[in-house]
C-alpha cells in the first residue's frame, strides 16, 4: 500500500483515501476463505491492468506486486486443501467488477 501510494504521488497523482470496511471474521476458516477471496480478487484485478500500463518501470512494479498476490492466494487455497490454481491460465477481472466484488464482500452489515 505504501509503495503504491508513493508511486501515485511520484507520478503527480493523489492517492485515494483508504477504504472503510467491515470484515466478517468470526472463525479461522471463515477468515482464511475471506482472505482467499480477497487475494484472488486482488490478483485478478492486477492482471487485468497489465496490458494498459505504458510506463515500463510502473509495469515492473505492478508485476512485482501481482505475483505476490498470486502467492497469497495460492498459499491460502493450499492451507484450505483446495486447488491453488484456477487452471493453467489465470483470468483477469476488471476494475469496476473488482470494486463491486470487494464492496459485496466487505459491506457494512
Amino acid at each position, binding site marked *: 500500500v505504501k509503495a503504491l501510494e508513493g508511486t501515485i504521488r511520484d507520478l503527480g497523482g493523489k492517492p485515494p483515501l483508504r477504504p472503510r470496511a467491515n470484515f466478517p471474521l468470526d472463525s479461522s476458516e471463515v477468515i482464511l476463505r475471506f482472505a482467499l477471496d480477497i487475494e484472488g480478487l486482488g490478483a485478478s484485478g492486477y492482471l487485468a491492468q497489465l496490458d494498459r500500463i505504458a510506463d515500463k518501470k510502473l509495469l515492473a512494479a505492478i508485476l512485482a506486486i*501481482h*505475483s*505476490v498476490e498470486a502467492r497469497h492466494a*495460492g498459499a491460502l487455497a*493450499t492451507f484450505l486443501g483446495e486447488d491453488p490454481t484456477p487452471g*493453467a491460465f489465470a483470468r483477469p*477481472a476488471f476494475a469496476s467488477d473488482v470494486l463491486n466484488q470487494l464492496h459485496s464482500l466487505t459491506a457494512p452489515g
Partner: protein
Amino acid sequence: MSRRDPNSPALAAVEVHGMTRSSFLLRGALAAGSMYGAGAVAPWVSGALAQTKASDIEVLKFALGLEQLEAAFYAAALKFANLAGDVKEIATEFGKQEQEHVDVLREAITMLGGKPGPAPKAKFGVTDQKAFLELAAKLEDTGVGAYNGALPKLTTPDLILALGGIVQVEGRHAAAVRLKAGQDPAPRAFDAGLSPAQVQGAIRQATGG
C-alpha cells in the same frame, strides 16, 4: 484437493468487458488451448497477434525454455522422487499445467513466424519428496522472477496479458510448493524481475548443472 475456482466463485460470473477484440480472441485461444489442446489455438492467435514484433517472439522463446524445463522437472519427479499423497497430486497437476504453457507458447511462436527452441537438457536428481519440494520451490521462484523481468520487454499488449495469466499461475505454484516444503510462501513483499542471465544462473545453481 477439491476443485474450486481460487479466483472466488463470485468471480466466475464476473463480466469481462472493456477489452480489445484481439485480447478477447487471445483469451479465447488460451482457454481453448487449455481445454482442447494447443492445436485448437491456431485460428485465433494468428489474427490476434498479426502485428507482433520480433523482440516479442524472443521473449516468448525465453518463456518457452523455462516452461520446458519446469515440465521436464515435474515429469522426472513423478518418475523418480517417490512422491505420494497431496504432494504427488500437486506435482501431477502442476506438471500438466506447465505442459499446457509449453504447448500454447510453442503454438504462438510458430504462428508468429518464429521457431520454437528445443527443450533445454537438464538433470534434476530428485529422489525423494523433500528434495523435490525444495527444487520445485527454487524453479517456480525463478519462473516468477523470469516472467516479471521479461514482461516489461513485450510490446504487444495482448501478449502482456496472456503471459500475465501464466506468471500468476507460476506464483501460485511457488506458494503451494514452498508451503509444502515448510517455507514462507511469499518471502518478500515484491517479486523483483530477473534478467535472462540471472535466470540462467539461478537454474544452473538449482540443478547443479
